């Protein structure tokens, strides 16, 4: 049995894991939450947002892609790493147009919830106010690029769960964006309302139409409990 277990340390706490697990998976099972945006429980790891950055034996690594190792020492909730995470969230906010006050996702949005959890009152970088569009051509789904954080959860969900290939990235650097697999836009793809992809978008970018604001303020996912509480609830002791 012992060959199948590795033991490592996260913020001073000893955690046991199976050798094929990532640091994030092992920590989740142990009730230790590592902040994340592009990682999602039912999808393959992607490692793009870097919100899950931890230090492994002193080196920054993405906890969602980095495998566990016997005896590694992981730092996660240190002041330095929390600040790195805050900086990333700040950048995501200023790079897009995130109008929380009228966004249908507000209260259920993982980007917003992460900012709350990290205690961000205002981003410290200058707002870019980029000019971006909306694709509302589909009868049941829309994309608002103003809010997209390029996590690729829609792309991965479409391939891995919906068995389609409705979305993909085009462009590089600041020009990178999610594109639909049809020159006619969303309505030209095989995306439909039974797809999981819109449900797995962490922000209000890829959305089902006509269900916004269904849950009253105060009862939404992150109104009372910070993102990650579900994982921390598992904490033993």
């Amino acid at each position, binding site marked *: 049995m012992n060959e199948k277990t590795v033991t490592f340390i996260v913020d001073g706490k000893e955690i046991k894991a199976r050798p094929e697990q990532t640091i994030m998976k092992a920590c989740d099972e142990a009730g230790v939450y590592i902040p994340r945006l592009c990682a999602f429980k039912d999808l393959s790891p992607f490692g793009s947002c870097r919100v899950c950055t931890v230090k492994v034996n002193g080196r920054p690594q993405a906890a969602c892609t980095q495998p566990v190792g016997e005896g590694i020492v992981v730092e996660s909730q240190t002041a330095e790493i929390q600040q790195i995470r805050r900086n990333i969230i700040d950048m995501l906010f200023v790079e897009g147009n995130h109008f929380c006050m009228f966004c249908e996702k507000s209260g259920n949005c993982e980007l917003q919830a992460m900012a709350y959890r990290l205690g961000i009152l205002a981003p410290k970088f200058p707002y870019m*106010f980029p000019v971006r569009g909306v694709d509302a051509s589909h009868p049941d789904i829309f994309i608002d690029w103003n809010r997209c954080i390029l996590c690729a959860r829609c792309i991965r969900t479409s391939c891995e769960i919906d068995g389609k290939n409705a979305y993909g990235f085009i462009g590089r650097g600041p020009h990178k964006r999610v594109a639909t697999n049809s020159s006619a836009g969303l309505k030209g793809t095989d995306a439909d309302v039974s797809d999981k992809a819109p449900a797995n978008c962490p922000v209000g970018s890829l959305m089902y139409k006509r269900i916004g604001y269904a849950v009253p303020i105060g009862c939404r996912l992150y109104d009372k409990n910070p993102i990650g509480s579900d994982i921390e609830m598992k904490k033993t002791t």
Partner: protein
Amino acid sequence: MQKPKIATASLAGCFGCHMSLLDIDDRILKLIDLVDFDKSPVDDIKEFTGRCLVGLIEGGCCNEENVRVLQEFRKHCDILISVGDCAIDGGLPALRNGIPLKECLTEAYITGPTVYNPSGKIPSDSEIPLLLDRIYPCHEVVKIDYYLPGCPPPADTLWQALTALLSGKPIDLPYELIKYD
């Protein structure tokens, strides 16, 4: 002993943040025990009468007058706070930031479907403050010391922040009081 003074202003905002301040309900009586209001729409004092401990700014800067008022607040207040999303990130008015000013004005006064404007001109009276090219968050114009987000920030957020500052403590908001909507 003289009470510390508070000043407030609504720049490119909707007065919702001021409404939220009134929403502290009967604690407003306690607040009046603790502070005097200086320049503010609450008491309609138009000019600063002296140095203020705290200035609360609602709304970002959409025109030259907003910039002037904001600079005046910075000059007269020890602590300047951006209150609400419009002050912090431009808020709803910033929806025009991706549209050239000329286009905005043309649609608002000439080509918009509901416009009635026989003169066919964009108003240009010298009494009307000139619009800026876009909305500027307050901290892009002057130094801001604290931020209280929300649209509007909950009354409890404003209350906690003010009472902390008045007793010389740092503002330390619990999870439920940090809201962007």
